[in-house]
């Protein structure tokens, strides 16, 4: 197995009295798409900016492509591409000029016109940055991150505020980056994005990794799934509860509507249907609801909105 592209171990970052990153560790494998997912204020950008060498770890260690992002900054920078959450260009600079300037800082840049066309920016090459739409500015930021042909790109919310077409174009580009061997680390708070793109997800909350794994791992393992069904009211639910394994609960909601919640397995389903057979009851609308990544996200990070 190749060496990890990014290794963060026991990273601690504080802003004043706020603990932004709390002894966080994560490893990013080379050549894959890794999403750092979490609500606002979870510490996603802080982790990324520490990897980019903007912030010095207050405690813990960060290695990117085996290098220290601060002490070996000069060696590291040509090998990584960075897309900031916003800005990064002069307000009066034209889109193509800006990309050409960034390209001139690299030894083997991509062909500009092909890249502009690929991101749908060919028609606004002569437009001043401040007159570009938000989506065009985002896509130019992405172009600036990849134009130097980096090994690794850090994309901070690459599709925030994009319309569906631009989002799709960005997704396709990110997928091609990975297919061509570029390691991609992106932050997002769109569950759909992480689920579609990522090979591996780190779910962050309050500066810690709450859970991690592939999208399918996250929605199946340990997730709280639900069986619901309808039948006549007043079935002896207590009996069902006795035969279900610990950690699974059964209850009648509105009369005639029943729910079984917990780590639902095929065995759970067999137990429930066995109970029907013993009671000689034929339920209707029997469904097993598998949770989406969004449910996992909300379960693990709490349902309260954060500013």
């Amino acid at each position, binding site marked *: 197995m190749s060496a990890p592209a990014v290794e963060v171990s026991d990273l601690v970052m504080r802003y004043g009295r706020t603990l932004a990153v709390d002894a966080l560790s994560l490893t990013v494998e080379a050549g894959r798409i890794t999403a750092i997912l979490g609500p606002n204020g979870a510490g996603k950008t802080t982790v990324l900016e520490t990897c980019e060498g903007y912030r010095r770890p207050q405690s813990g260690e960060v290695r990117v492509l085996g290098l220290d992002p601060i002490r070996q900054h000069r060696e590291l920078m040509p090998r990584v591409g960075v897309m900031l959450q916003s800005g990064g260009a002069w307000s009066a*600079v034209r889109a193509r000029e800006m990309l050409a300037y960034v390209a001139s800082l690299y030894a*083997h840049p991509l062909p500009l016109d092909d890249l502009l066309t690929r991101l749908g920016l060919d028609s606004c090459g002569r437009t001043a940055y401040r007159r570009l739409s938000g989506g065009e500015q985002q896509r130019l930021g992405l172009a600036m991150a990849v134009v130097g042909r*980096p090994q690794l790109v850090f994309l901070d919310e690459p599709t925030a505020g994009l319309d569906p077409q631009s989002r799709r174009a960005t997704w396709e580009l990110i997928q091609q980056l990975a297919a061509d061997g570029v390691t991609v680390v992106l932050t997002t708070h769109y569950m759909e994005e992480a689920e579609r793109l990522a090979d591996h997800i780190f779910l962050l909350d309050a500066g810690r990794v709450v859970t991690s794994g592939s999208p399918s791992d996250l929605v199946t393992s340990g997730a709280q799934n639900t069986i619901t069904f309808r039948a006549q009211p007043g079935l002896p639910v207590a009996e069902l509860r006795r035969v279900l394994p610990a950690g699974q609960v059964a209850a009648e909601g509105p009369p005639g509507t029943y729910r079984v919640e917990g780590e639902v397995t095929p065995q759970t389903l067999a137990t429930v249907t066995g109970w029907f057979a013993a009671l000689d009851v034929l339920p209707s609308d029997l469904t097993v609801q598998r949770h989406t990544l969004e449910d996992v996200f909300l379960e693990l990070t709490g349902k309260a909105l954060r500013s």
Partner: protein
Amino acid sequence: MTALSFIPAPGASRLPRMVAAHARMEVLLLARNGEQLLLALGIPLLLLVGGAKSGTVVDLGSGRRIDVLTPGVLALAVMSTAFTSLAIATAFERRYGVLKRLGASPLPREGLLLAKIAALLCVEAVQLGVICAAGLALGWHPRGGFGTVASCFVLVVAGTAAFASLGLLLAGTLRAEATLAASNLVYVLLLVVGAVVVPLASYPESLHAVVSVLPSAALAEGLRHVCSGAGMDWWRVAVLVAWAVLAGTLTTRTFRWE
């Protein structure tokens, strides 16, 4: 769909190429900005032509008006570019995340500084060329030969270092709007009380000690002294170097990139 390939081929460009690309961009953006052009050339030329033609509205002391005026306007041009323009441009680069973005690029910080110096010197070369030509056309007679040119060069470089350090000190600590306001205010204040265009000798005696240690007075008086054929006044260079060292030290300690 183009056959664009992202197969990695990382590598930094050579430093001179990066510096040249960045300096070119700074000059290009300045040339595209009307206000900056007004500051760099419009105001100095207006003062030069207006001052030369206006007779005795402002007392410039003894000597031919154009001979007193031209070196002062040259000093003003250096001040506008190295101080006001640089401060405003850098403050907005900070605000728009340009400096931050460049922090994650192969352009090292000293490369950025070199590029900014190169851009300043390019703009000043154009300014000084235009102002000298206008001054000569209006009858300016600088005294001395190569020695005068060399001394002026030393003064301009020292003045640029002093004003650029002060400009970066503002840009690296204040918000962009505050830098815009402060750098324009300082520019106008120095123009009025800093012995830039009006020579120190025309100021009340009691102010001489204070005004003469201002970087504006040091540069303008130094240029007037040299161009009158009186030779280099090294005291003026020392004042400018002291400002450059003081402001440069403070800037390296306080400059915030974001």
